[in-house]
């Protein structure tokens, strides 16, 4: 207990030195050559930036899936020569239903639906509704699985859109089944990003229904709002060319009008479809539909066979660029909505760092003064350990690239207060043993031994509490729990090994007859 092998001593000092080295990058502004460069990762609350929590719209996903199933069901019934009428879908209940032409055909219709070749196994169940309706219900699990897939797909698209917007170091992560977290350092006004992500950007090219201009859509068409005129236009349901066939898009200035426009080009299949459609429909109006809104509906003058075109809506430089970014990145499988937003300006972050640093320094000095006054020489050793502790904590935070948040800084500070606890326990224990009449050597030995059990018990409970906090906490709370958890580990190291080493070395060198406690 009172003997430190050379190897162990070197080990302890080595860890401290390593900690110091790992800490250095935090005090430099530029990366040093040939050095592992890892700075503490500052949270958005300290460096300024935006945090967005997006949720995928499951209902719209279900609605899309029901629409597809409905089309497939019609097809399946037609193939079997079975009649149907009154197709309805209810996305909120995840159901779609129809009436068989003849009640006697109900059984056959049900079988035809269940045997649809496009049906994914167990995706839906077929049952009976009111008045002889046949009801098809999408399973909860099937929708959840679709949501998971859609989130995976969306993350990629979100990443491309944000990269296209010029944001630096964005972090995009999934959370749970249907959520995406977007962190944007340096962007303290996320309005544009929100708009960029809030658009599905499903672009389709469709013909306008011929002749109709009334308020009722003809069969096979629906009324969609026209962005530029404010009217509604009857747009055919049939999609001539899909936006998914685009290969490129960019913001350009229109040669004729001098205003901003978005140019695009199609891949091979898209170009052919576009050429076929324009050739067959010269003189008709062709609508460019984005998320169920008509951006533009020009009259086809001549067939367009080159595989590229231009949209001239009412664009600004920004909106043209953003639309181009969205078209290039592709359409989102379902709408994403922002459900939580936190934006912190850079000046507030800097204020917080300053306040934290001042508090840290003052707190450190107060604790050190206290230890020196109350515990003399051993208090000074505790102070050396305290500084080493701070260095090791910073090193650990840098090494693990843990995110330091504002509450994390508070955690750092509180750890400093708790760190000397072990020293106090040891010192008090040694003192007691001396009062009981032990010699200096035996008092130190027994004091260390007895204090260790207590130290382990008291730290283990704190450790457990904070691990729980990390597991169940989110965001800033996790950051706080993480710093304290790291702090408990480094504290055990510096007090049980380093400050003890100092005390033991001092004793070995001076062999005092009494201890300064």
């Amino acid at each position, binding site marked *: 207990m009172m003997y430190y092998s050379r190897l162990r001593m070197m080990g302890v000092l080595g860890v401290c030195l390593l900690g110091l080295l790992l800490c250095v990058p935090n005090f430099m502004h530029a990366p040093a050559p040939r050095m592992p460069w890892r700075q503490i990762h500052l949270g958005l609350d300290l460096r300024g930036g935006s945090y967005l929590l997006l949720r995928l719209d499951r209902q719209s996903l279900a609605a899309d899936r029901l629409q597809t199933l409905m089309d497939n069901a019609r097809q399946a019934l037609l193939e079997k020569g079975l009649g149907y009428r009154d197709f309805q879908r209810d996305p909120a209940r995840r159901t779609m239903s129809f009436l068989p032409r003849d009640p006697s055909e109900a059984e056959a219709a049900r079988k035809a639906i269940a045997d649809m070749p496009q049906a994914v196994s167990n995706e839906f169940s077929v049952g009976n509704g009111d008045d002889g309706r046949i009801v098809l219900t999408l399973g909860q699990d099937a929708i959840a699985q679709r949501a998971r897939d859609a989130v995976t797909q969306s993350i990629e698209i979100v990443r491309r859109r944000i990269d296209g917007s010029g944001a630096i170091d964005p972090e995009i992560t999934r959370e749970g089944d249907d959520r995406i977290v977007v962190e944007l350092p340096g962007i303290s006004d996320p309005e544009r990003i929100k708009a960029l992500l809030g658009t599905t950007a499903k672009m389709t090219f469709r013909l306008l229904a011929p002749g109709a201009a009334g308020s009722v859509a003809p069969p096979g068409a629906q009324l969609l709002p026209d962005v530029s005129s404010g009217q509604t236009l009857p747009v055919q349901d049939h999609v001539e060319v899909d936006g998914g066939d685009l290969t490129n898009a960019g913001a350009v200035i229109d040669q004729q009008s001098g205003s901003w426009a978005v140019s695009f080009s199609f891949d091979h299949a898209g170009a052919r479809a576009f050429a076929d459609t324009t050739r067959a429909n010269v003189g008709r109006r062709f609508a460019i539909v984005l998320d169920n809104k008509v951006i533009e509906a020009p009259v086809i003058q001549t067939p367009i066979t080159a595989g590229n075109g231009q949209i001239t809506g009412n664009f600004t430089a920004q909106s043209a660029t953003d639309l181009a970014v969205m078209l290039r990145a592709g359409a989102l499988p379902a709408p994403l909505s922002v459900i939580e937003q936190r934006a912190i300006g850079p000046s507030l972050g800097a204020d917080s760092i300053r306040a934290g640093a001042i508090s840290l320094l003052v*707190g450190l000095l107060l604790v050190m003064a206290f230890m020196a006054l*109350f515990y003399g020489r051993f208090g000074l050793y505790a102070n050396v350990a305290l500084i080493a502790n701070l260095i090791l904590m910073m090193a650990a935070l840098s090494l693990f690239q843990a995110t330091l948040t504002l509450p994390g800084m508070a955690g750092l500070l509180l750890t400093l207060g708790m760190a000397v606890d072990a020293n106090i326990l040891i010192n008090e224990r040694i003192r*007691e043993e001396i009062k009981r009449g032990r010699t200096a050597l035996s008092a130190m030995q027994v004091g260390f031994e007895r204090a260790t059990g207590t130290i382990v018990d008291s730290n283990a409970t704190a450790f457990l*509490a904070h691990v729980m906090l990390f597991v169940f906490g989110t965001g*800033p709370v996790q950051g706080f729990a993480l710093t304290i958890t790291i702090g408990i580990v480094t504290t055990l190291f510096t007090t049980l090994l380093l400050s003890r080493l100092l005390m033991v070395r001092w004793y070995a060198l001076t062999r005092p007859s009494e201890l300064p406690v």
Partner: protein
Amino acid sequence: MLSRPLFRFVSDDKRIPFMRGRYAGLATSAILSLLSVGLFFVPGLKLGLDFRGGIVVEARTQGPANFPALRLALAEQHVTAAGIQRFGADNDVLIQLDTPEAGPQQEAQTQKLVDTVRHAVTSAQPGTQILRADAVGASVSRELFRDGLLALGSSLAMILVYIWVRFEREFAISAVITLVLDLTKTVGFLAITRFQFDLVMVAAILTILGYSTNDKVVVYDRVRENLRKYRTMPLRELLDLSINETLNRTLGTSSTVFLAALPLAIFGGHSLSGFATVMLFGIVVGTSSSIFIAAPLLLLMGEKRLRRDSAARK
């Protein structure tokens, strides 16, 4: 210099008969906790953005903030703010809005509203910097609240299990009762001071619990040791002895933690000073409850069981 300690809290020979005041201590604590529970209902906690949902915008204007102009700008956008107030300096403004009425579009509306407020503020006083603009939807705030309580509950459960395993049942139960008393007082303190109860506050309360447990474990550790050492000493005397023996440590560690948190309460800025102030309160409560509550509870519960032999002898 400083080779010897200059101060002590209490001299080593001092024997303070803490157990004599056990009923007074327990009664005071019970009353304070009951009052705190009352405060929890009236006026209740001031829920922060995390748990209530809504919008908070902090702005720094150039020159003193012009409140009438800000109110007007918001009114023009048909925004009814729950509060527009100064915080800290003359040019720092805090605007709070509640979540819009429940509905399918609620979260989208919340998000739109925050942008509207931003524009209104910057147009009312040009040159205004937006320091922070947070908007939390209703469903998220409910989840955050649930997660926060889950973190609190599971921490308490872990502490209970740990002490039960390491010590004995009486220790674990009295520790958790003491912690619950500490917790209720902290909640009462939050209700009185009107600090916002948000996720950061949950972290503060958990830290207080962790710290308070730590304090109790040290005292209990000594009690357990003394139980083995003085086999015939009555429990009451033994508890007094254990508390006195650990008193310098208890006060010493409380002081260092207090000193570390103090600058944060003073310099931490408005977001952290509330957190730190609650911590300071918790340190005082936790330290006093280690002495005046945890040990007396142990005496009440363990008089028969922990010291069966000495009780029989009397």
